[in-house]
């Protein structure tokens, strides 16, 4: 399995609004392997959700993939026709959304919606589809599946609905599950249940998961690899261990400083100053430079390139380049 399952290459996605072009994603590239849990973390407007939606090609009508390609098992799906994409969604790749309250149709029963999804993508019909639906509900830990199938979404709690959404996403055993802030709308105890469920299912079914979230805590407990995004670009990527214990991008460092530390709870937080970037006029250089404490002249004018810190870790920050130069210089002096 040397070929990645999904390979995103230099993705650019823009939204064309009244006020102008909003470049939500600016040259994002990453690979996703079989059975990997990849976390994409960033604040609102960093382009993390748009990246996920671009893979599914379910952007809002004003949004468009402007440049770049997405390879699924070696095929460029950005060139696929809508009909092929419909097969791709559901069979190869499924998505669960943030708000379980609005992603289920309130006028149909759970069973209705679930069997619909099954009939659409498999050749199961009637009783068979119903049996599969019950099986799926059981898989996501809903007790009394037969009774639940007859219920309407409003009869279920938020956590239950998110489980139903997951069941629906798993209907055709996709290779990839995209979870877009799956637990943000849920309470802490319910969040723990859902995260545990996703982890369990990922192990059992061996699918790859892209977890999009703003919550560093969720990322820390779930993900193998992490991508940190800011202003539509990838700041830093690496294993969870590298990102949390050896951050090499000023934004990641700032982010980790600005959450209360578990071991030193009462210490003062060090926030990232300034306000989130205005996506309508992106700066010429690094998108984070306006808020960066250690910004340099070069950060204002030139986009940083991604350089490898080690084999599991890459970051796009000029400070790493400078430090590399200092080391190089130091070595040369000796």
């Amino acid at each position, binding site marked *: 399995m040397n070929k990645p399952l999904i390979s995103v290459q230099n993705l650019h996605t823009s939204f064309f609004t009244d006020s102008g072009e909003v470049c939500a994603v600016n040259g994002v590239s990453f690979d996703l392997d079989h059975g990997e849990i990849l976390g994409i973390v960033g604040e609102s407007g960093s382009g993390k959700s748009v990246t996920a939606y671009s893979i599914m090609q379910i952007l809002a009508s004003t949004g468009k993939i402007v440049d770049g390609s997405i390879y699924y098992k070696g095929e460029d799906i950005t060139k696929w026709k809508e009909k092929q994409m419909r097969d791709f969604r559901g069979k190869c790749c499924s998505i669960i959304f943030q708000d379980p309250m609005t992603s289920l149709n309130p006028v149909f029963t759970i069973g209705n919606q679930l069997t619909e999804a099954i009939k659409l993508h498999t050749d199961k019909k009637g009783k068979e589809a119903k049996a599969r639906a019950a099986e799926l509900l059981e898989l996501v830990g809903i007790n009394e599946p037969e009774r639940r199938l007859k219920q309407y979404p409003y009869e279920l709690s938020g956590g239950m609905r998110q489980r139903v959404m997951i069941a629906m996403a798993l209907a055709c055993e996709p290779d990839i599950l995209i979870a877009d802030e799956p637990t943000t709308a849920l309470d802490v105890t319910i969040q723990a249940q859902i995260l545990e469920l996703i982890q369990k299912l990922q192990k059992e079914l061996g699918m790859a998961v892209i977890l999009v979230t703003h919550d560093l*805590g969720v990322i820390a407990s779930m993900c193998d690899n992490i991508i940190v995004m800011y202003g539509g670009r990838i700041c830093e990527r690496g294993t969870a261990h590298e990102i949390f214990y050896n951050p090499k991008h000023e934004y990641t460092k700032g982010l980790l400083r*600005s959450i*209360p530390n578990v071991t030193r709870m*009462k210490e*003062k937080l060090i926030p990232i100053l300034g306000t989130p970037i205005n996506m309508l006029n992106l700066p010429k250089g690094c998108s984070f430079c306006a808020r960066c404490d250690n910004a340099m002249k070069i950060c204002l004018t030139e986009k940083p390139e991604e350089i490898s810190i080690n084999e599991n870790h890459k970051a796009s920050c000029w400070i790493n380049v400078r430090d590399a130069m200092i080391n190089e210089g130091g070595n040369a002096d000796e």
Partner: protein
Amino acid sequence: MSDILLEVNDLKQYFPIRTGFFQKTPLKAVDGVSFTIGKGETLGLVGESGCGKTTVGRSILRLYEPTAGQVIFDGEEVTKNNINSMRKKMQMVFQDPYSSLDPRMTVEDIIGEPLDVHKLYSNKKERREKILELMNYVGLNSEHATRYAHEFSGGQRQRIGIARALAVDPQFIVCDEPVSALDVSIQAQVINMFEELQEKLGVAYLFIAHDLLVVHHISKRIAVMYLGKIVELADSDELNNNPLHPYTQSLLSAVPIPDPDIARSRQRIVLEGDVPSPLKMPTGCPFRTRCQYATEQCAQECPTLTDRGGGHMSACFNK
């Protein structure tokens, strides 16, 4: 605690909900909550959605008329009649920085509204000076005074909301999930600002949130609510290190910790099932339906909040 600023005694807030054609069932949003807050202190109030924590904050400010119980502020009971003057001393910061600011008003008018209502200035110039001073307090640029709220980012909007609350120079502010709608990097800015304002002005906070990490960071003491009742109240470090109530224990274990090693090594107590509907409250202890230690006794009577030493209060028979 020698100087108590706010005392809440057995506060009850029921909302009648129509359940049948002629039938109304009381929804017990808050059911007998008591606590005190000292001068310049921060009390954290945590709980899951629907546990009544927001209602507690609003009932204190009499945005709802409480069903029973009393609120004593600075030695004086808050009643229907004196609430308007009380609102000069007690203020509120709201959760949603988008809907809590009137979209048709400029920042200047939003912050100036409490000044207008309580007539806290003698002329236009004084009003403007006060507004600019407030904006300066919360780190807003004075050029922003004539802009509209929708032009600002979430963090800046929350600053405007805080400036509005500070305008009357209150001694106590109810902070109703003030950071949960903000991005992580902005949360820290706002939290720091709350702390700085407390140091400078000596205001006390009731800090309502569902994020235990944030509450733990900012509060001196924490109260945990479940279905309208406080189940545990203790010093924040004590609560974190030595939770007594089974609900607090599971809540703490479920908090996602932004540290991969700790997050992966610790034992999670995952609660089974969902929070029961407040319309169909279980008998006895409200938590017993999800509690692993529940006994016969729990179904019969409701445990009260008792001191377990050093001001650590818990409401559980078994733990």
